[in-house]
């Protein structure tokens, strides 16, 4: 279970972040001001801290300086689009920053990147008879290895990490191919079809009209 500390003064945003994290089964704990946030960060063992910049009592940068020693990766949440602010946050040792307002999946994607970097994500994912070994980059079905291209591998891993979530083509494109990739959504369709065919996920990896795709989780019938 991944534990994430949310330090955010706006109750509704904190609640929203917690709800967003819960859909990928990450547990969130909320602090509503800098002081208690810093105390909580130093006390508890968290895998990641989401830290708002504008906080009462103590701003995000001050909190950052205090909690640096505990080594927990930090992502800044900021309403500022100021480059100086972002640079300041990153200089202080933050892993990333997210500019408000953000979409739920963007938050999850950034969180995943940081967690993966600090090896906090699971190494293996099991899904029915499919088993993915992230470290060795191998995917097996019923014990037999399945040949997938690197991008097909990334696509199935993304779906496995976001089960029961409707993923838009754009989101998939930016998460798997990267933000710079100016590809078309057709590329996504072709890869999804290949993954479906190779792993026999015709019934599970379903198309949602006008939105994208969703991988149904195993336990739902």
């Amino acid at each position, binding site marked *: 279970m991944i534990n994430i500390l949310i330090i955010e*003064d*706006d*109750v*509704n*945003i904190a*609640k*929203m*972040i917690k*709800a*967003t994290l819960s*859909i990928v089964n990450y547990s969130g704990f909320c602090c*509503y001001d800098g002081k208690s946030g810093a105390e909580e960060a130093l006390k508890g063992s968290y895998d990641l801290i989401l830290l708002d910049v*504008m906080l*009462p009592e103590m701003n995000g940068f001050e909190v950052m300086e205090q909690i640096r020693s505990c080594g927990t990766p930090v992502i800044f949440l900021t*309403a*500022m*689009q100021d480059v100086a602010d972002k640079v300041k946050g990153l200089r202080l040792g933050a892993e990333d920053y997210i500019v*408000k*307002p*953000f*979409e*739920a*999946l963007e*938050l999850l994607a950034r969180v995943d990147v940081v967690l993966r970097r600090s090896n906090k994500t699971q190494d293996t994912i099991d899904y029915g008879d499919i088993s993915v070994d992230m470290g060795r980059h191998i995917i097996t079905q019923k014990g037999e290895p399945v040949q997938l291209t690197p991008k097909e591998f990334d696509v199935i891993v993304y779906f496995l990490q976001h089960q*029961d*979530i*409707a*993923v838009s083509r754009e989101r998939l494109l930016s998460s798997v191919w990267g933000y710079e990739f100016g590809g078309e959504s057709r590329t996504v369709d072709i890869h999804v079809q290949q993954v479906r065919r190779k792993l026999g996920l015709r019934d599970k990896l379903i198309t949602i009209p006008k*939105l994208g795709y*969703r991988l*149904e989780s195993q336990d*739902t019938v």
Partner: protein
Amino acid sequence: MKLWQKIFLSSLFLIIAAVNIISITLLSNNHKLLIEREKEHAISEYEYFTLTLSNTVIYERMTSNKLMLSDTEIAAVMDRILKRGSENAMGSTVNAYTPAGRAAGTEAAVYNLANKQLISSSGMSGLYELDDFNSYISYLLGLDAGYQRENFLTHTFTCDDGRHLMAVSSVISFEGKDCLVIAAADVTDIYALRDRQTRFVRHVSIISAALISFLLLATTIILLRPLSRLNTYTKAIAEGNYKLRIRKKGSQEFRELAGNMNIMAESVQQNAARLEKVAEDRQIFIANLAHEMKTPLTSILGFADLLRIKKTVSDRERAEYAGTIVEETKRLRSLSGKLMELISIGCTETEKKPVSLPEMIRETETALSPILTKTSVSLNCMSEDITISADEELFKSLLYNIIENAVKASGNGQQIDLVAAMYGGNAVISVTDHGIGMSEEDAEKVFAPFYMVDKSRSRKAGGAGLGLALCVRIAELHNAKLSIDSKLGEGTTVYITINGEECL
């Protein structure tokens, strides 16, 4: 051309010109004086010479025992004297130291005025080579004999060999015959002296010019140095270093200029600071606005996205998510409404007319009655009969906002006191609550846009942090000032001080 160059060159030119004019005038005066003296000297020599001539002629006549000497005899006498004949008629040697001897050394010429013929001459060869001397002779021969007899005429000639000769002439009668006698005196020394002095003055003036120019240059540069210092400072100030002040040094004009420039820099600095403050306030306002807009937007976008992407959403979750979205949307609506109000107050013309203060307070009280009933806070109003010039709607909104704030700060059943009275020529309205109060630090910032003492409480109450900013604007339009007096836990008093000019 630079100022110091202009000053330097013009004064140098003037000084050198003045020195030269003065020395030339002095020299020429001195020269004239010397010439004059030499002239007198030459004339007395001439008189002596002519006297010797006439005496010799008379002596000759007497020794030859004649009644009258003939022309040729006179010419012979003249020749003897002029051509330095060493013997006189009696055969005795003419001593160079006797008057006759001295006269014999004189360069002279004698003309017969009757037939204009040269009788005799000696040593005048240098003069006869000059054209202007020859024409001078003919001029003299043509002149009235009577006039010449009375006067001695002089004229100085420069010979080709560099000698300066002064010709003295007059008409003398020998044996009843008018003769023009010209004698030349050498005045070369005087001219040589003049030339020497001129050369000396020229040398001195060149040396002194060099000296003067050096001193002048130094003085000019030293005197004008404050100017270049002022220049440097001005440039620095112009480049934005408004803190710079110029040291008052140098002559009085420069000190005054420096003083005035300091005054200028001071006012520029103040203006720049004011503009900076305005820009900074605006920056803060925009940053706060962005924050205030993005916070509800983040919740709205996040929850809406959750509703969109989640496969199954329980009823409880849906209610919670949608509820938050509605709540945050309302917050945005309130923010935009307040913002519009704030902007429109500055844009539209306020319509001021005389309104009764107690009347407005009563109406505001009525408008607030639902909130007052809900929170069971009592409002106790006391007002003198004051009439002010105000935009009724805006002023009521000011009162409403301030009383509403007091209500928000008060607990159930507490009392709010409103007192309106004339105080020191101004109309003062005070609104006092006995609620939560705030710290001094908060009280200072409370008028700034988006400042909220307790964010979460304020947001729950639907506040955007713009209420008091709005009040400040309205107060400004009414020539009024807002001030706050608060103690944490004891309550708050807000004063609206309306300038006496607005009271009728």
